[in-house]
């Protein structure tokens, strides 16, 4: 905590007035738009309310219904499918790019500008762009595949290829972000380690495995934590690219929440599901913090 001394000769009520002035506006905003909705959502998750008929107390029924719902388990499965496809790809490619960018390049800035373009663009535009690129008939990707003699799949129209399409677009969008954070981590590694290792005859892959990766592990862990938290909440790209289809093959957790709340007006059930999502994120974060204590090397 901050060591801040009181002002000399300051009256208590004056100070209280100042605190109210500085903290008040933000506190009211936080209460109305964040804290109260959080509490309300928790209460709502034990009730049934469609806004038209009076709310009805259900106890744990929403949670029980959820655990017995095939749609929920499917959505959970699809969310994990997304995570297990997206996370390793974006990490490995991001690390590869960061290692390339960490060389002594004169035009690094140009590359940085290029890699960051997808990061700053709105997901809706990016999702539409990929939907077009992956169009089975007229899309650029299948045309390019055709050039090398491969007949491209139906992508978002094929239940087997819809999720890989979403993963591909997501990796494309986030690669620059992951690369930049890993690059910042790489640049924080003291050169002495490399010098010592190269005197010992280490080079190439060996150097990467025994020096770079261990020393980069705090940054890698950090990237994994935020990417994972974000992946659990994957929605925008799914909504625009497939809307959960075809045949429900890409319906994710947030998609289920949104459908229940805004399509079926099952506000209580949707709230319960959002708390399950929170619990999942919370548990995964705790597990990661625990792993971090055991696995991460600090310089």
């Amino acid at each position: 905590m901050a060591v801040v001394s009181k002002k000399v000769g300051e009256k208590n009520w004056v100070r209280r007035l100042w605190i109210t002035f500085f903290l008040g506006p933000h506190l009211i905003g936080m209460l109305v738009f964040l804290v109260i909705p959080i509490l309300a959502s928790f209460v709502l998750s034990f009730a049934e309310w469609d806004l038209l008929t009076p709310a009805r107390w259900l106890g744990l029924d929403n949670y029980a219904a959820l655990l017995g719902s095939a749609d929920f388990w499917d959505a959970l499965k699809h969310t994990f499918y997304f995570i297990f496809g997206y996370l390793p790809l974006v990490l490995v490619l991001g690390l590869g790019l960061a290692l390339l960018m960490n060389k002594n390049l004169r035009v690094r800035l140009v590359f940085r500008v290029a890699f960051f373009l997808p990061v700053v663009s709105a997901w809706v535009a990016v999702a539409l762009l990929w939907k077009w690129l992956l169009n089975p008939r007229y899309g650029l990707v299948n045309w390019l595949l055709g050039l090398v003699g491969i007949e491209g799949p139906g992508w978002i129209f094929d239940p087997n290829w819809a999720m890989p399409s979403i993963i591909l677009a997501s990796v494309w969008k986030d690669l620059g972000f992951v690369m930049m954070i890993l690059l910042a981590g790489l640049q924080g590694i003291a050169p002495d380690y490399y010098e010592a290792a190269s005197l010992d005859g280490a080079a190439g892959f060996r150097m990467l495995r025994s020096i770079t990766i261990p020393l980069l592990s705090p940054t890698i862990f950090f990237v994994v934590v935020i990417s994972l938290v974000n992946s659990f909440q994957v929605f925008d790209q799914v909504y625009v690219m497939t809307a959960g289809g075809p045949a429900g093959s890409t319906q994710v957790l947030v998609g289920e929440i949104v459908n229940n709340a805004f399509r079926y007006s099952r506000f209580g059930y949707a709230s319960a599901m959002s708390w399950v999502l929170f619990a999942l994120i919370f548990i995964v974060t705790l597990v990661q913090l625990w792993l971090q204590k055991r696995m991460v090397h600090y310089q």
Partner: protein
Amino acid sequence: MQAENHGKPMTYITSNPRTTNLASTLKIVRTVLVYLALVAAALFAVFPFLWMLSTSFKTASEVTTTSPTLFPANPTLANYAAIADAFPVWRILFNSVLVAVITTLAQLLFSAMAAFAFARIPFRGSGLLFVIYLATLMIPSQVTITPLFILMTGLGWVNTYQGLILPGAFSAFGVFLLRQSFLSFPKEYEEAANLDGASYWTVFLRLVLPLSGPSLATLTVLSFMSAWNSFLWPLFVTRDAEIMTLPVALATLQGRWTTQWNLVMAGAVLAVLPIITLYLCAQRYFVQGLTSGGLKG
């Protein structure tokens, strides 16, 4: 950023001119390979945008062909005109700017004031309150979206600017970020100002804010970008085109012209052009803001 070149091969401990020659040839080959890989990756990142742009100038028949062309054979602005006919484009752009600017200003002002109170004015319960603030960062936004929507319905704020803007105008993240920075500079400055009889407001405005440039820049970039690109909340709280932001309008446009990719891509160009222009003008702040914001958050 410090030491940039430790990826470079280390000093070779050898005096044999032939090995040195071989080593330098290897070095050149390696540099060429690095550049080739980076150029390929950069193309992968940029080319889809060029494709988007090119498609937006094509005619319907040129889009539905199985042998696509890089440059439009008969470039046309008809797609953009069609969008301007169907959507109040300037109004939607204005809405996006308004939402992003007001959200950013509110985030900056209120977060900075609250952070100042947490960092610089001692009061009972300050620590506990701050912990509660931090706890809200753990809750995903989907948790609050249902009650917020009910609240907005109750207030009659669905399809209004205040309903669109206010829920995104307050977050614990900004307070957290700025408090860190306010705590980092020496107390002595402030004590000197106090002795001069300066009020908290003067200290805040004249001393604390000017010293926090980088953190304020980070928060500006993060707030602006997330407000500009925000989709889920605007999707549910807006009904009419008069109040929509660009991403929502773009999603609506896709629903209307499902298979007319030249039109959809023209819409996508309109949606990404402003933020990309802004990014190119202030790219240093964007990159710093996004990476350091990510690192601190």
